[in-house]
């Protein structure tokens, strides 16, 4: 059987073409943090429930703690580090500040990526749609009201950007 313990993939990471050669079953979370030093990707629960490790793959929201490198073969991965130089990040970042949606900050990169994923899908979400879309991102500080408000502020301030 032609099995592989070294696995080769090509993917785009924050705009750079990357060739990864290594264990195909390492967690993508570890690959991003350890190999590419993208420490904005956080490990919270490690089982897909908290969203601290959220990234975008081809524009859609994923938990990197549940993924392995083979799942991003020929895809585009965006982490908070790659997103932070964009106009949309600036809008979301200001909205989070204005609403007081950041306290300890550990969930924030994941919340920001989830906000971006939501606004790409639905530029003007209703309150319930925000709560439902963000239900996979946990915050133990804010109580969520400020985060939901932040998404609404971003949606309004960034009208036409998404």
């Amino acid at each position: 059987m032609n099995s592989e313990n070294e696995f080769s993939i090509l993917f785009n990471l924050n705009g750079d073409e990357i060739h990864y050669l290594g264990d195909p079953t390492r967690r993508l979370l570890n690959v991003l943090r350890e190999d590419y030093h993208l420490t904005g990707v956080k490990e919270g629960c490690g089982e897909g429930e908290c969203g601290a490790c959220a990234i975008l793959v081809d524009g859609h929201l994923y938990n990197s703690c549940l993924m392995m490198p083979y799942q991003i073969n020929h895809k585009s991965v965006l982490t908070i580090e790659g997103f932070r130089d964009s106009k949309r990040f600036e809008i979301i970042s200001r909205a989070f500040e204005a609403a007081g949606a950041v306290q300890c900050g550990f969930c924030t990169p994941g919340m920001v990526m989830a906000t971006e994923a939501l606004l790409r899908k639905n530029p003007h979400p209703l309150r319930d749609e925000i709560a439902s879309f963000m239900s996979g991102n946990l915050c133990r500080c804010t109580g969520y009201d400020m985060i939901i408000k932040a998404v609404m502020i971003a949606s309004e301030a960034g009208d036409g950007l998404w």
Partner: protein
Amino acid sequence: MVKAFYYPRSLNDALEQLSENEILLIAGGTDLVVKTIHWTGHMDFNKTLMPLSHLPALRGISTDDTSVTIFAATSLNTILGHPSVPDPIKQAIRSIGSESIRNLGTLGGNICNASPAGDSLPALLGYDAMLTLQSVQGKRMVKLADFIHAPGKTRIRPDELLLSVTIPKLSYDRYRFSKIGQRKGCAISKLSVFGIGRIENGLISDIRLSYGALGPVPIRITDAERFMNRKSASEVLDNWDIIENSLETQLKPIDDLRSDAAYRLEVALNLTKEFIASFTHC
């Protein structure tokens, strides 16, 4: 460290590997990874791991006049975005995990994981879903109702994989999927109740009632369905002790970390009653 990893180039390649080797199949991995991972982040799979989600032959949705076929490795969110998938099925799928989990998780994974709390299963049972299993020897069809026989156990052979799920386009006048979890979003079911049915001349017709996390496998209660058909909702509600008796005998809820048996049964009965009450005034 994984024993071995095999990345199939095609469906045929995957089937050939399955016929020759002992293999652990993985689709989205949202259950398998969580079950397997150590706190350090390392995963130990005891068999050769073979991913399936990238194979085009296992993805997508096809539809004809009478049925919808969902290929096994189609992501849950892709299914939610497809216009031909019936709303009752979508409502159940929408209750699974969160946006990010539904991007990764697949319908075939939810079925083959065979969890008593798999949230697509009561709705698929209500729809009499048929599964197509494939091996190098060919295809065979199995009813979902016959496929899962114990928690985590299915009748799939080691050389087979789940190719697709076919559901008929049912006509219905009422449906409801009620999921009770610790919170609304991103929770595993304490219990779930799925009901769907038609109304003919003011009487209940072709009703289907199925239950999740109320026993070792998701289950349909066909004798209660038969009792209800061709009766009015008020007649059914007047004879509620018969329904209660049927459900109490056939549902086998347990006490576990998420809930307890008495709560599960009581809420299942109440939700069933609520669903039947929705057939009144028609």
